[in-house]
């Protein structure tokens, strides 16, 4: 297994994983009488006390609606909400906080772009390019858009290692290509896609590009201006923040030209019986009372990962994945699914004829939480001609001892099935 680390070489010997673990109360839990070994981080990450306490403080001390009250608490809540928007802006290095739209998650962000930007600009005969690696959230919204508009959906294929075949991508691109939507990192296999190159090639034919960063933001720094992507989306809960909150970044000129996605309070300037005028960005896309606590909690999560430095944690995670790969490679019958040269934090595998759901149940009995199934990426499973995989996914609070516990639990699967 090769893990190319794009970050500069950082000394992780001073990386204090125990100190980090102490920030995550749930890591002290026991499951089935065993210490919890949480290796399902690609599904959702655990929350540090800094995030939990931020939510607690908001509800205890200044819970209030935003952007409308004249009272003190409302002002305090509004300030905290808009400060979090500034944090997201800096986190993605966006040009303006008007480009940061709060949504429920990456899924809602993609649906917003498909239904607002897509329906406004796509017509019959246009083409939308996605990849065989995508999560269902970056497939189904485009299928719906194609049904509504008569556009055609095309897929960049992957090779046996789970990497995009870029020559095929180039063949798919043409003047009819209007949107290219690609995951930054694959949730099923961990493949890191060459998104800068994908974006540049799409722009060369005049297409707009959406990057699904749900799996990427916990593992790598993102600079949307440098990438020059038109949209970038992610979910807060995979970034150690609350569930139910996510971010749509869009270039200001594009967002400005897009029609509203949902109508309601906060997104209007004036409403009369016959017609309404819409609020300016970013509020135009934030109808109704938003998930205020979620936004403020996401701000705290961003503070937390900034403090740790994603370059440092990524290096630690890569070393951990290398170790896990070495250990797993010793297990007879274990087959890696997804062996991209450039990958991160995900060990997806099959084990002889043992079904991944049985692996998941047996590992759970040992306190080891992994995901078993198709990972909401059925086209990937189809590509590898398997119904499912078992997937261990790592975060910076995982340890070598936890990898050892995983390996021992996998051995137990083999014993149970003789």
């Amino acid at each position, binding site marked *: 297994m090769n893990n190319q680390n794009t970050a500069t070489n950082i000394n992780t010997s001073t990386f204090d994983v125990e100190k980090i673990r102490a920030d995550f109360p749930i890591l002290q839990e026991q499951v089935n009488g065993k210490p919890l070994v949480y290796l399902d981080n690609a599904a959702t990450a655990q929350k540090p006390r800094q995030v939990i306490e931020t939510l607690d403080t908001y509800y205890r001390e200044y819970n209030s609606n935003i952007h409308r009250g004249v009272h003190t608490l409302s002002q305090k809540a509004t300030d905290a909400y808009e400060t979090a928007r500034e944090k997201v802006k800096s986190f993605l290095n966006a040009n303006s906080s008007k480009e940061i739209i709060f949504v429920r998650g990456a899924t809602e962000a993609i649906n917003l772009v498909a239904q607002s930007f897509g329906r406004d600009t796509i017509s019959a005969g246009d083409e939308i390019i996605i990849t065989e690696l995508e999560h269902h959230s970056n497939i189904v919204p485009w299928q719906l858009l194609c049904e509504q508009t008569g556009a055609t959906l095309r897929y960049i294929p992957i090779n046996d290692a789970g990497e995009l075949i870029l020559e095929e991508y180039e063949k798919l691109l043409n003047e009819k290509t209007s949107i290219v939507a690609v995951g930054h990192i694959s949730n099923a296999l961990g493949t890191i896609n060459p998104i800068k190159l994908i974006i540049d090639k799409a722009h060369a034919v005049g297409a707009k590009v959406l990057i699904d960063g749900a799996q990427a933001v916990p593992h790598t720094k993102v600079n949307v201006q440098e990438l020059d992507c038109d949209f970038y989306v992610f979910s807060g809960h995979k970034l150690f923040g609350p569930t139910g909150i996510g971010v749509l970044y869009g270039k200001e000129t594009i967002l400005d030209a897009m029609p509203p996605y949902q109508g309601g309070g906060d997104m209007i300037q004036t409403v009369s019986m016959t017609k309404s005028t819409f609020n300016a960005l970013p509020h135009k896309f934030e109808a109704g009372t938003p998930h205020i606590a979620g936004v403020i909690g996401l701000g705290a999560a961003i503070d937390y990962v900034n403090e740790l430095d994603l370059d440092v944690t990524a290096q630690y995670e890569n070393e951990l994945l290398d170790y896990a790969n070495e250990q797993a490679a010793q297990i007879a019958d274990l087959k890696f699914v997804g062996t991209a040269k450039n990958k991160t934090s995900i060990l997806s595998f099959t084990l002889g004829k043992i079904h*991944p*759901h049985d692996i998941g*149940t047996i590992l759970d009995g040992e306190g080891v939480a992994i995901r078993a199934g198709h990972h909401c990426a059925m086209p990937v499973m189809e590509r590898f001609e398997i*119904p499912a995989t078992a997937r261990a996914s790592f975060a910076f609070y995982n340890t070598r001892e936890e990898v050892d516990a995983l390996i021992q639990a996998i051995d137990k699967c083999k014993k149970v099935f003789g």
Partner: protein
Amino acid sequence: MFDIKDLYQEVIVDHNRSPRNFGKLEDADKTLEGYNPLCGDKLTLYIKTDGEKINDISFDGSGCAISVASASLMTDAMKGKSLQEAESLFNDFHNLITTDKEADIDQLGKLAALAGVKAYPARVKCASLCWHTLHSVIEGSDTPVKTE
């Protein structure tokens, strides 16, 4: 505390490794598919019946050990049973894996090996997929069965 061996008993491991009645029944009168969309377990049930009795039954498909063993044990138990007996067994089995009611172990025979599933709510549908499919066949349905 549940021991994993309570779930994966010897008989289940054995029926998963070498499923009985596995393969298409060429002269089946009734064929129905069952599908568990959440985890991808898939099976097709083939039944030869005179309208009163199950004369022969088989299955094929793919799934976890629990779903394969359950289908293997169920088809073994169903051969020669009347449709009424089959329905009665369906109810007994359903009680066995979802309730604390005293199960009729004599009636269930080897099927009782699946009792451990009750402690794993996420796996109940693995064991019950084949049964719901059989139940639909007996009720005369030809709509593929989905468990969620």
